[in-house]
């Protein structure tokens, strides 16, 4: 019974280690805002110039342990995982004492909530789970997972539920999904907006008027991104063709105007001639 429960924690541990690796690497690569790493777990304990490296060392350490557990049945990797989570518990305890304002960084920027009892409890539970692996047969994780039966399922689900209950990141992620920042405050890639512009009907109906292939200027204002191209009016005069692309939504609005050198809009379509009406 105890062996079955312990064996059921292996996929949970592998999942946690893999998720930690991906989230940390994503946080370092993306670095959504300068100074993000100064509010996260292990990175904050080292000087500023070493913070990225520290985060990556943690990420690749977790990846190494996950791969080791998956492909090897050697006790070294099991003891290494126990040591990793035990040291993590101590680091979080120290972090809570020395820097109560920073998050644990366990799952990158999502773990920006200050370290609390739940985060500490989670690493303790993970330490206990990894210690339980010593009770299981010394076969690789891959073989162990392949040999699992339905009897292991309750143990896996229970492990996941305990960890979910001890993870403040889930509430943070739900809050981020539920309460998104307004469009005006969110980052948007200019290349995405340009792609949306070039797939729009407004673009296709005005490409004949453009004399430049690349925009001569581009800027963002609130939820709009503007692209300016050199072009020609219906009369053959040089004009600036300005496209405005709304940044939010699946089918964003695209507007266009042609502006002469005097700053006045040029009519994009000629007015229809009046039709004679018989009484």
């Amino acid at each position, binding site marked *: 019974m105890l062996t079955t429960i312990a064996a059921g924690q292996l996929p949970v541990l592998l999942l946690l280690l893999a998720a930690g690796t991906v989230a940390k690497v994503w946080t370092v690569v993306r670095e959504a805002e300068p100074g993000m790493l*100064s509010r996260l777990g292990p990175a904050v304990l080292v000087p*500023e110039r070493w913070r990225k490296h520290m985060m990556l060392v943690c990420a690749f350490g977790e990846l190494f342990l996950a791969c080791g557990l998956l492909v090897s049945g050697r006790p070294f990797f099991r003891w290494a995982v126990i040591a990793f989570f035990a040291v993590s518990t101590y680091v979080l305890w120290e972090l809570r004492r020395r820097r109560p304002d920073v998050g644990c960084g366990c799952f990158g920027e999502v773990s*920006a909530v200050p370290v609390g009892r739940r985060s500490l409890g989670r690493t303790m539970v993970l330490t206990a789970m990894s210690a339980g692996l010593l009770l299981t047969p010394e076969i690789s994780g891959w073989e162990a997972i392949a040999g699992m039966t339905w009897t292991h399922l309750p143990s896996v689900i229970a492990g996941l539920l305990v960890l979910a209950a001890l993870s403040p990141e889930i509430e943070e992620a739900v809050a981020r999904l539920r309460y998104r*920042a307004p469009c005006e405050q969110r980052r948007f890639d*200019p290349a995405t907006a340009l792609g949306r512009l070039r797939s729009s009907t407004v673009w296709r109906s005005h490409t004949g008027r453009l004399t430049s292939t690349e925009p001569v200027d581009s800027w963002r204002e*609130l939820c709009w991104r503007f692209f*300016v191209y050199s072009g020609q009016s219906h009369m053959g005069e040089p004009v600036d063709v300005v496209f405005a692309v709304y940044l939010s939504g699946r089918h964003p609005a695209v507007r266009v*105007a042609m*502006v002469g050198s005097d*700053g006045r809009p040029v009519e994009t379509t000629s007015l229809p001639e009046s039709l004679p009406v018989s009484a």
Partner: protein
Amino acid sequence: MPYLSADRRRALAAAALGRAAQEPGPLPVEGESFHSVSGAILDVSPHLIVIDTPDGDEERLVIAPWATAWRGEAVTPADLPVGSNVIIRALRAGRVVDRIWADITRITGVIQSIDAEGKDHSVELYCGPHRGRRTIVIPYRASGRLRVRHPQFEPGYLFDAIGVRENGVAQARLPATSQPPYRWRAVPTPPPGYSGTQSRISGTATWSDTFDCGEQGVAYPMLERSDTACDDAGVSCTGLPYLSLGSMLNVRNVCAGRTSVLPIVACGCLAGRFCDRCLECGTSPRGRILELSPSSFVELGGDLTAGCFNARLGMG
């Protein structure tokens, strides 16, 4: 990508969105409007000051009996040395001097290094990608007052002071704010904005001397990095919306009740890192939301030596 002028961007955006292009300038105000005059002093007497403006014109202004001047400390206008660069707050269509600031400079940046020069300190500051580095001197007689408001006097922390330029050297005299307790790259995140952007945002407006002489405009922190070639832009602890160079802002000095429509002309990447509060007329509800050029700051009724006022910001 080249940057079209602010006026051109304004015209293009207005045409694309079908809105009216508002012209920059002060909005009508009850009572006397302020004008700013900048230049170098050619001559000064107790009643008259002659200024050489950047355009090469000679301006003759009457000094009001109540007028005061500042050059590192309060002085009488007639004691200002010839050749000083001054910013004047003028009344009556810009003909009567109300207040003079001479050789004033705003020293805002990140401390890079500190060296002792006798009793004085020489401090190297990083002032942002556009503004580069500058070296300033903290005289011994001003160091106590500055250090009280800047307890983290070490590299990596923000510094903000008001001083004077003497012989080409900027000397800090007054602390412009209480130093933020965090390092400049560890700016606290703004509180999450769960609803649509407010039509008006209240916060602190400061000034900077990195604008051209007499230029009207603001430096705004929340700009896209790709549009401005400013790698430090897009950081603010006040939850501001993204705007661009050329966007027009409606800036109201809440303390003085004056409003101007001003274009964004520079990247305010350092302003966004100050979560301090202005205490000019009550505590400002947020940190810095923009930096004004000295001329715009003066015309909105701000006192350059105070360094800030409570502002309300809207789209122009």
